């Protein structure tokens, strides 16, 4: 079979899946827009989607933008970005050395250690967070044990610390695995060459390993940042305080518990746009790097 013919066959096989994925992205997105720019039931105050774009109304979108610019939602948006940024840096700081060790030095322990990292995550995310809540709440076993060694703190007092650490714990394996995949396939001969040419271990790491792992590291960061931006259950389970609300919590509130569902839908659209902008800049940069390497 010629290469061109094989490509055509695979293209035909992929087409239904691509069409399905496309429809599953575009149709719900359109539905969200119809809710965001639609009406609400005058009595029930729940969403009445406006399917005809010519009749879309943008007053609620304006209210959300105004709140983001100079209202209650501004603090929520700033907090969300800060939480995600801090959690991502902490997850990277925790995950990179683990991935590096697994890829470079674990030897025959590599598979058992990988399994040990993955196994706890077979347990449902909510259950793991609830377990932490029960352990670290003031009457929990963990908090009592810490008190015995002189660490006295109410971990579940609705503070940012609990939410950020929860995010780190929840998402850290999703940064370790792609980092491991990147480092495991890295051409270590280049590092050895750097060492042969007189670079110290730190210099070789900084000038060779890190640049080679940059694309993989960026992808791993993107992979955990995207779901973190939409996360609401970590805050719901570990804090429940308005002072730690993230954008995901506001979306949940507006769509499920308020009489202003359009605002939730507007936030969904804004968050999607923000994430797509961030993602496309990453994709452009990796494309550029790939082209440079091919040259």
């Amino acid at each position, binding site marked *: 079979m010629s290469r061109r013919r094989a490509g055509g066959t695979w293209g035909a096989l992929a087409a239904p899946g691509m069409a399905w994925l496309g429809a599953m992205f575009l149709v719900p997105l359109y539905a969200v827009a119809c809710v965001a720019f639609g009406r609400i039931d005058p009595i029930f105050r729940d969403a009445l989607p406006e399917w005809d774009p010519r009749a879309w109304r943008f007053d609620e979108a304006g209210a959300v933008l105004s709140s983001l610019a100079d209202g209650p939602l501004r603090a929520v948006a700033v907090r969300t970005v800060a939480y995600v940024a801090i959690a991502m840096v902490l997850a990277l700081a925790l995950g990179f050395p683990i991935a590096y060790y697994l890829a470079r030095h674990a030897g025959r322990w590599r598979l058992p250690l990988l399994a040990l990292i993955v196994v706890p995550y077979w347990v449902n995310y909510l259950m793991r967070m609830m377990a932490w809540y029960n352990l670290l709440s003031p009457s929990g076993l963990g908090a009592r044990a810490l008190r015995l060694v002189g660490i006295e703190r109410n971990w579940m007092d609705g503070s940012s610390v609990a939410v950020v650490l929860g995010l780190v714990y929840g998402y850290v394996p999703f940064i370790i695995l792609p980092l491991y995949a990147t480092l495991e396939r890295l051409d270590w001969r280049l590092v050895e060459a750097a060492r042969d040419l007189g670079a110290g271990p730190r210099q070789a790491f900084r000038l060779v390993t890190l640049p080679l792992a940059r694309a993989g590291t960026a992808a791993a960061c993107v992979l955990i940042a995207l779901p973190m931006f939409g996360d609401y259950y970590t805050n719901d389970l570990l804090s429940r305080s*308005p002072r730690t609300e993230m954008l995901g919590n506001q979306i949940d509130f507006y769509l499920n518990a308020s009489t202003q569902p359009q605002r939730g839908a507007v936030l969904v659209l804004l968050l999607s746009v923000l994430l797509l902008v961030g993602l496309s800049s990453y994709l452009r940069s990796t494309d550029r790097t790939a082209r440079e390497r091919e040259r």
Partner: protein
Amino acid sequence: MRRREFLRRAAYAGTGLAIAPSILAACGGDAGGASGDLQIGTPESPVTLRTVGEPIADGLAPESGTLELLNWADYVNPETLAAFESAFGVKVNVTIYDSEEAALVKLRNGTFAPDLVMGMTDTALARLVAAELLQPLNRSYVPNFANVIAGLRDPYYDRGAQYTVPYVIYGNGIAYRTDVIDRSRFTDGDGLGAMWDAAYRGRLAVIDSYRDTIGMALMRDGGEDVNTGDEDLLRAAGESLLALREATNPKVDIISYQELPGGNRDIAYVWGGDALAMPMYLPEGVDPGVIGFWWPETTATANDFFCIPRASTKPVLAHAFIDFLSDRDRALANATYVGYQPALEGITVDEYVAATGIPDSLTDALVTPERYASGLRFHSLDPAVDAVWNDVWAGFTAG
């Protein structure tokens, strides 16, 4: 596929993961508009709700199979359910909701068709009837209706009790740990002010219900209209809640009935029935007297009720369940788990205490008929007023 391409595609997939839940949430479908106007009853202006459809005929046999029940969490005793299942040879399946708004959405969009709903209040009733979601009851199947508190047999929100049968009564107040807070904290003339006390920062909670918590702020400011449409008063209550938020960093949820006895909170604004349930969640060996309850002289009192959706496929069995739980002995047995006080006549404080074993420090949470009658009532709001209440709440929860 090269590694970089794989990573790039994985990143695309990540975008989908991040936004998928929100998108799905927004795709709940068009529930359609309401069919009629809101009929809002108040104690001053009781309402006879318009009748939609006919009650079921007399003398029908209860259906077999599974009774689908929509209820709050921990709001019916599993032993009571088992007794009903055994008595009628059926199964009962409970689906929970965590706010009236969420229950209304479930009922309206048809994603779930329960046979019986428990725990709704008159803040939702007008909308349920306007959307023609309920069926009128046939009380020949509910002889125990005669046990209902006299003042609720013809309630202001549903004259003639056409659609509803009261389930429990309660009043809003403050539950607290007596080993941390002395009762005198509440008796200095500004008892509700304890909820604004920075001394309880990180260990204080309010109800995740915009009506109840904004109502608390209104009452603290001296208001006696917990259904006000006065925007200035509501904005002032909103400012007051922001002050509470800054001072105490409160939890906003409906699980204080577990968290306060568990030692994770010291003080919480609660539905009184939740306070009565707290001793059941104390660690073994802890004196129930560690839980205290206080409420202001004038507070909100309410009752929840049973109602049967129009789409119920087992209406006779649903009526039988209402009757089963309106029996005094079964209602008391149910209260040993739920905590909430049955809305039935003749259950004295002594009887209730004997049945449930609640400590003296909690007897204040029991609602006497006089207390119930003199309490403030939340009722359904005009949609425009409701929007202002929601706006104030959104400002508070946005942190």
